[in-house]
């Protein structure tokens, strides 16, 4: 067995050369490619992480904006509600004021109409009173003689049956407001005597003035009180008709 130092030296050189070759053409390029891929992967991961961060930030901003928008919307709604309530209250107050004004105007108009109607009624009443007074004055008999004459005339104009019933009644009496003298009563007594009847004499202040014939069967009216009552009834009928 021998050791060839030349071969040993050549092999050392060969190995050093091979080391340089493989370092330059194999390990460095492959390691660089691995590192490049890792760098690309890191870059992709960083980009993805950045995109994720950006997306999260955008989501946070969107949530914040949505929250702000909701708050602004609530504020706007609250403001609008407040304004609506204010306007509604103002409109209601204005409407009430107008209603009060209209009501006051209505009441004033009604008062004016009532006043005018009252004045009109008063004028009419005055006219009626004047007419009544005129008619009464026109139709009023001239003193007790006049009432005695009108009683006699009325007795003659009565239907025969009515007259017989009146005269046939009990307690046939000539009633006057105050005691009348005999010369006034002679006319009516004579007329009664013509129909075969006699009557007593009595007074009734309610007649005011006049002379009536009363019996148990009826009354022949002939007094100022009766005339007033008749005129008042006529006025009542006129008012009802109006």
């Amino acid at each position, binding site marked *: *067995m*021998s*050791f*060839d*130092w*030349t*071969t*040993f030296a*050549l*092999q*050392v050189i*060969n*190995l*050093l*050369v*091979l*080391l340089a*070759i*493989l*370092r330059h*053409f*194999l*390990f*460095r*390029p*492959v*390691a660089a*490619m*691995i590192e*490049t*891929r*890792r760098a*690309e*992967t*890191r870059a992709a*991961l960083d980009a993805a*992480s950045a995109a994720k961060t950006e997306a999260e930030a955008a989501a946070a901003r969107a949530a914040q904006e949505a929250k702000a928008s909701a708050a602004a919307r609530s504020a706007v709604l609250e403001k609008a509600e407040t304004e609506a309530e204010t306007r509604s209250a103002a409109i209601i107050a204005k409407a009430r004021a107008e209603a009060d004004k209209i009501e006051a105007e209505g009441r004033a108009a009604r008062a004016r109409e009532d006043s005018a109607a009252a004045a009109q009624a008063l004028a009419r009443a005055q006219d009626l009173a004047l007419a009544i007074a005129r008619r009464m004055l026109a139709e009023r008999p001239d003193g007790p003689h006049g009432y005695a004459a009108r009683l006699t005339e009325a007795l003659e104009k009565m239907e025969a049956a009515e007259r017989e019933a009146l005269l046939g009644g009990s307690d046939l009496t000539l009633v006057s407001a105050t005691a009348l003298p005999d010369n006034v009563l002679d006319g009516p007594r004579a007329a009664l005597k013509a129909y075969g009847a006699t009557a007593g004499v009595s007074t009734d202040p309610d007649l005011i003035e006049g002379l009536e014939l009363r019996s148990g069967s009826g009354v022949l009216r002939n007094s100022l009180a009766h005339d007033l009552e008749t005129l008042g009834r006529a006025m009542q009928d006129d008012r009802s008709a109006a």
Partner: protein
Amino acid sequence: MEAPLSAPVAFAAGTLHVTWPVVITWGLMILLGGGAMFVTRHLSTRPGRAQAVLELLVETLDSEIGATIPGDPARFRALIGTLLLFVLCANWSALVPGVEPPTAHLETDAALATLVFGAGIGWGIRAQGVSGWVAAFAKPSWVMLPFNLVEQVTRHFSLVVRLFGNVMSGVFVVGIVLSLAGLLVPIPLMALDLLTGAVQAYIFATLALVFIGSAVTGGEAPAPGRQSDPPAQKEIP
């Protein structure tokens, strides 16, 4: 018949006698260098099969180096990778008829061990400085100084003997069986040589890494597979 332990001369250039192991080593250099240039001429971020194999080799080397020596594994990647590929290809060159592996000769193994020895010294001095590297031989006590100095030689010598003995014995066995039994009988032994060659290449590269790591870390021989700082990598969420 030539002496089995002597290197036959292929040719002579003047007084320089070039032996067959050197010639075969040149062939392996051409093969490895040419193959490396061929495969790496169009590297891409989307690797093909050949590029994927090379990347797997590089990443495995980085992983092993990182598990043994703290720091950047790129410092030792080319040396350990070259040792692994050369020893593997040299061992497997026995499959080519008429080719005797360079590692079956003592000079080649000695050259490999010398490379590891020189790398250990160089990286040790670079890592610890001259004084620190020398002081590492006196650890844990100055009494150990001669033993550590002897160990520096013997453990590299063991590298030579281990690789030489395993490869040479395989070649011898195949040659003897081939001369006795015929053509097809040595095939199982040649297959066994494939396994032995791969294992020896891995053992040589691993021991070289451990020896260099020991020199770098100041005499504390790191165990292969020890967890250390991995190469800087970004964690993928």
